């Protein structure tokens, strides 16, 4: 039965992406976003010179790959679909920098690439995100899909609440498919997410601040 739910989640994701699916701001805007999920903890500070591009520092301490990555990440809003009651986005993310393995083997050239898509109304959110990492000694490809519902519609500046379900696929992990129910709270320039990954018995805490 759980596999049916997973299949449904992946199918929804195929139509349309995750918390960090806001990698580009308005022209002149800054954003800081941090993800913590037990596999890695990341920090991305970026500036958007236009409404379709952003560039900034990305650093990730990846316990799963036993590596710390530090570099520059460029994000491109490839396409946005603005409709009267919805918005869809397709993003490209490219990062280049250095990976510093825990074993002290020395820094290596490293990079990452990702595609993210999302579609949302004020009630429904669906997203899909794929990310490939090459950290010198280790490579990985991971997928994440989300489906979210807002129990009520809030105005600008009010507290927005979303109940979401995230399904991830990490081919190399002991549990390749991981499901994380999470709560997203969003008001003004601040977005916070808290969740719990069932298969791995670990917590998720993400936040974004835009200024």
């Amino acid at each position, binding site marked *: 039965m759980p596999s049916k739910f997973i299949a449904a989640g992946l199918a929804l994701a195929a139509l349309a992406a995750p918390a960090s699916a806001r990698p580009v701001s308005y*022209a002149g805007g800054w954003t800081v976003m941090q993800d913590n999920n037990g596999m890695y903890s990341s920090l991305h500070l970026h500036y958007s010179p236009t409404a379709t591009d952003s560039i900034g520092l990305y650093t990730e301490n990846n316990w799963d790959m036993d590596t710390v990555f530090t570099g520059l990440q460029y994000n491109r809003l490839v396409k946005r679909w603005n*409709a009267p009651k919805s*918005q869809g986005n397709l993003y490209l993310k490219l990062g280049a920098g250095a990976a510093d393995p825990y074993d002290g083997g020395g820094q290596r050239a490293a990079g990452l690439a990702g595609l993210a898509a999302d579609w949302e109304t*004020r009630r429904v959110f669906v997203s899909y995100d794929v990310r490939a990492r090459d950290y010198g000694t280790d490579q990985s490809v991971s997928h994440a899909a989300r489906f979210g519902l807002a129990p009520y*519609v809030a105005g600008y*500046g009010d507290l927005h609440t979303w109940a979401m379900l995230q399904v991830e696929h990490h081919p190399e992990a002991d549990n390749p498919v991981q499901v994380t129910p999470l709560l997203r709270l969003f008001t003004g320039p601040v977005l916070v997410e808290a969740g719990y990954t069932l298969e791995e018995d670990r917590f998720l805490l993400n936040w974004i*601040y*835009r200024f």
Partner: protein
Amino acid sequence: MNLFKTLALAAALTMTAAGPALAAPETPATASKAKGEFVTAYVNGLVCDFCAQSIQKVFKKEAAVKGVHVDLDSGEVHISMNPGQTMDDAAIEKLIRKSGYSLTSIEREAAE
């Protein structure tokens, strides 16, 4: 566990620091008190607070603009101009696009 305590504290501090910014949304009443021209822009793609914040930040940089209010329910952006100042449709459309959204139409109320 300590890591999560630190992160939770960081998130709490971030939210506290954001306090003044959260007070930023203007009410239509505030926006319409201006005696300059009042413009309503109908915009596609406004679904969240980041969208509204983008519009406000971009328009508030303009010297002609006295106040901006975003209504997510109706997809309307209400712009109060400073007395004696205006912006043409092309300039408003450019700012909406710079914010990341799409303009569909504009209505104007003349200055009092």
